[in-house]
């Protein structure tokens, strides 16, 4: 008996070579989330404040291997090509980690002061961030799917975290139902893809799809997969969950969903569109064109009517997603510009949108409301917050020299570069939409600068340290990205398509 076992053990089992360095960022996050879970069990109630610090430090710690990998250079592929650590993955991992860190900063006081479970909150947040960092490296349908579920399922729970509030329940349930429905559609599309290609690897799928002609089943698969991710990035007409979920979820979670979760959706979409569907660009382009135009237009028009700032930011996020989809509507016609422009947009969008949410949270600590009129007279009793909010809002509107202009500019640049009638039409729609968006962003600025405080209460807002830190990070980035080449350099670095058209 023992002898047979020994025999089995001696059989040549080839353990796949694991590049631990390449996996280090994700492993650090895994380690920290386990640590948070265990620490929560043993910490007394009054010492729970350690947890957010632990989570935040862990996320920053995970940045270290990202940096060493970047310095080390070179592309690393693991697990038979299913998992890649290249510059694209590193830039986005860094984005997810920093955005995650800012989310932890936003959550610190909110979660501690509310009647919420703290340990589980940070555990789930870290799990979701782990899904995102994995997503940045996923080059295989199965990895993509696992990453997507890993980032989504904790997010469903987080969205419903305010469990005693009916709106919080609505947020969680709506997000969950819509999310799993989208997952179903996505899985169906993936299964069709596998059926056609016989492989789950994106590069293999690209080869298999290079038929040179349009095959209905391939088109169907592409449409289903794109639709599945369109839910994730809240593109119209798959956006209906977003406003209710954003409003009902705890504000830090809303910020997280509107930035990190959306970015993760875009990462997957980018990989699929640029690698997997490279030969099916004729199917992808009109699809993206329609999604982009619908998202930016409908998102904008509905945002105009909002009276709640968080809902307004939700619709504005839908419209911003339209701008990020626009470069994908000319994919295949502009070389690597699609990647550069979408990644640049994501980086800038993360900074300015997180910033806007931070100010909302800081002000809500005093006013207890996210209704737009409650921001009246902010310039008089909290001038720094009002100025910062002005910076973030006009950055979202794309007014130079604030970062948002550069994001919009690279999107415009990618679209105009395609030099087709459809592309120019899209550029004009984008131009008109950036004007419409100004109307609602400026409306909030107007409230802060030109109207009196609704209740005449002029006591200053006390901003806790963690929110100040978040404001500093997002504010500095929003200003710096607008006048330096950092964001575009990172976007360019992430471009793994070698033959970039100027």
């Amino acid at each position, binding site marked *: 008996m023992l002898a047979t076992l020994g025999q089995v053990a001696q059989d040549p089992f080839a353990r796949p070579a694991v590049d631990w360095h390449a996996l280090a960022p994700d492993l650090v996050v895994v380690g920290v989330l386990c640590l948070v879970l265990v620490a929560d069990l043993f910490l007394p109630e009054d010492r729970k404040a350690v947890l957010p610090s632990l989570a935040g430090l862990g996320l920053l710690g995970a940045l270290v291997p990202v940096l060493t990998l970047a310095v080390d250079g070179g592309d690393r592929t693991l697990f038979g090509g299913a998992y890649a650590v290249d510059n694209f993955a590193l830039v986005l991992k860094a984005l997810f980690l920093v955005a995650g860190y800012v989310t932890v900063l936003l959550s610190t006081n909110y979660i501690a002061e509310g009647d919420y479970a703290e340990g589980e909150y940070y555990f789930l947040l870290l799990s979701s961030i782990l899904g995102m960092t994995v997503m940045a490296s996923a080059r295989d349908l199965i990895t993509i799917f696992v990453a997507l579920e890993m980032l989504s399922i904790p997010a469903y729970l987080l969205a419903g975290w305010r469990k005693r509030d009916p709106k919080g329940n609505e947020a969680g349930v709506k997000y969950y139902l819509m999310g799993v429905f989208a997952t179903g559609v996505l899985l169906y599309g993936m299964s069709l893809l596998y059926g056609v290609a016989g492989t789950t690897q994106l590069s293999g799928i690209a080869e298999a799809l290079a038929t040179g002609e349009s095959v209905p089943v391939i088109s169907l698969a592409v449409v289903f997969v794109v639709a599945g991710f369109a839910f994730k990035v809240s593109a119209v007409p798959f956006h209906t969950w977003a406003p209710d979920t954003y409003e009902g979820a705890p504000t830090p979670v809303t910020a997280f969903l509107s930035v990190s979760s959306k970015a993760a959706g875009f990462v997957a979409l980018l990989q699929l569109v640029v690698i997997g569907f490279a030969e099916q660009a004729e199917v992808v382009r009109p699809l993206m064109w329609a999604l982009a135009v619908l998202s930016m237009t409908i998102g904008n028009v509905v945002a105009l009517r909002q009276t709640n700032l968080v809902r307004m930011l939700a619709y504005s996020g839908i419209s911003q997603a339209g701008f990020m989809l626009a470069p994908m509507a000319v994919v295949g016609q502009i070389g690597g510009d699609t990647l550069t422009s979408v990644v640049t947009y994501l980086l800038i969008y993360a900074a300015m949108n997180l910033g806007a949410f931070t100010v909302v949270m800081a002000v809500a600590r005093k006013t207890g409301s996210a209704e737009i009129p409650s921001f009246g007279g902010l*310039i008089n009793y909290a001038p720094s917050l009002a100025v910062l909010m002005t910076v973030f809002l006009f950055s979202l509107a794309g*007014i130079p020299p604030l970062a948002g202009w550069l994001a919009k500019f690279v999107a415009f640049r990618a679209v105009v570069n395609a030099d087709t009638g459809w592309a120019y039409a899209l550029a004009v729609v984008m*131009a*008109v939409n*950036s*004007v419409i968006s100004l109307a609602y962003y400026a409306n909030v600025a107007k409230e802060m*600068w030109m109207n009196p405080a609704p209740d005449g209460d002029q006591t200053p807002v006390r901003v806790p340290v963690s929110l100040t830190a978040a404001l500093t990070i997002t504010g500095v980035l929003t200003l710096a990205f607008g006048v330096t*080449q950092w964001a575009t350099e990172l976007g360019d670095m992430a471009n793994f398509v070698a033959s970039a058209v100027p």
Partner: protein
Amino acid sequence: MDNNQFLTDWGLTLMVFLPLAGALVMMLIPRTEEVTHKWVALAVTLATAGVGAAVIADFDYGATDTLQFAVNESWIDVIHSRYAIGIDGLSIPLVALTLLLTPLCVVYSWNHFPEPRNPKAFLILLLVLHTGMLGTFVAQDLILFFVFFEIVLLPMYFLIGVWGGEQRQYAAIKFFLFTLFGSALMIVSFLALFFVAGGDTFVISELAQRVAESDVSRWTGLLIFGGMFMGFGIKVPIFPFHTWLPDAHTQAPTVGSVILAAVLLKLGTYGFVRVALPILPEAAVEWAPIIGALAVVGIIYGALACLAQTDMKRLIAFSSVAHMGFTMLGIATLTDFGLNAAVMGMVAHGLITGMLFFIAGSVKERYHTLEIRRLGGILLKAPRLGWILGFTAMASLGLPGLAGFWGEFPAILSAYEPGAGLSQVTFRIYMVVAAIGTVFAAGYLLWLYQRTAFGTTTEEFENEDIPDVTVPEWVAWAPMLALILVIGIFPNLVFRVTDDQMTSVAQSIAAAVGG
């Protein structure tokens, strides 16, 4: 020598960003230190003017058509945009105007900040505005130009919206949306131009060269020019895009109106001469008759609208539409004569209309109304103010010997002999119409003067104490009044600087269309 080298390399950059640095310093000073804020703002604007004066003094006037103090450093490489700045004969008059005007605005506001006061925020916005305006006039890279062109929007939006009149919020957002709409189309045009020209530079002179070498199809050129036309034309504003102007000018606080009229409108006309004409000469020739037509419609429409106004400030605002019409007519002729007249028109209009808005602000402060029919007899109550109003109104209607004449008269005259490829008949018709416009201008300005300054004081103000011109007002106004007179007598002060540059622009257009 060392000093000069420093000035050559850093002079313009220092000039452009000094106000911004000042604004940052002011952010750190508590709001209650109002006096400190005023002094810091004044010191910063004076220092900026000092640096600018050093640059202008060091400028080689023997070569006004070449770019001087040029800096060309890498900026955002991925999108091929460079930090390229420099000044030439076209920039200098406008830079000088901006440098002069901003400190005067600080002085003028010294004791009367409009409600809700808050000098800190007001002056910080003014300084940011200053950086935007100066930057636009020195930028030589389209993207840099675009960034500066847009930077002015935010401070102006808040100046109008926070410190403006009763309809301030409406006027502010209308101003913002109109100009942003133009700029959005403009940036699409810039991008299209960039790709047409080979996709590796945004530097204006290089772009012009590339476009000349490649054969841009007629329609592409026309459409790209169209996008720029929207961007610059709304800013000017050209009829029928002028509707934001009367609201913005009327509702803005005095200093805001002054800067809007004196500098911001010039960003549009400057853009035409700096960007649109040199890069797309062929398209410019095809667009010119349309621009000319809209210009003269603007002249007549503005004048007629003036005759119908009951509010002094609104009247001055509409007179801007008419005056900018003359400038655009000069540009549309595409001749060196017309372009020179246009630049002169920009400077003259800046000084004169700026001055008129200052006066309107002071009248409003004294009478608490600008309704023409309730004013009257200013000459009796405040004779100096009345005389200054008379002097400026005369300058505005184009009286020879004052600055306004040299903007208007040559612009009309230049339409007699338009540039190569333009129909003489059409432009001579424009000339006649524009000439009729000057008669209207005399009409509405004299009528305004008659109703406000002559006659007797209306009953309601008969016993009110109306103070005459105060010291800060004198300090702010004297340089402008002097310049109106000096340029009126020695127009060569401006023409000598601009002439070479404008001649080369006109020649290159003529060469491009083979005329």
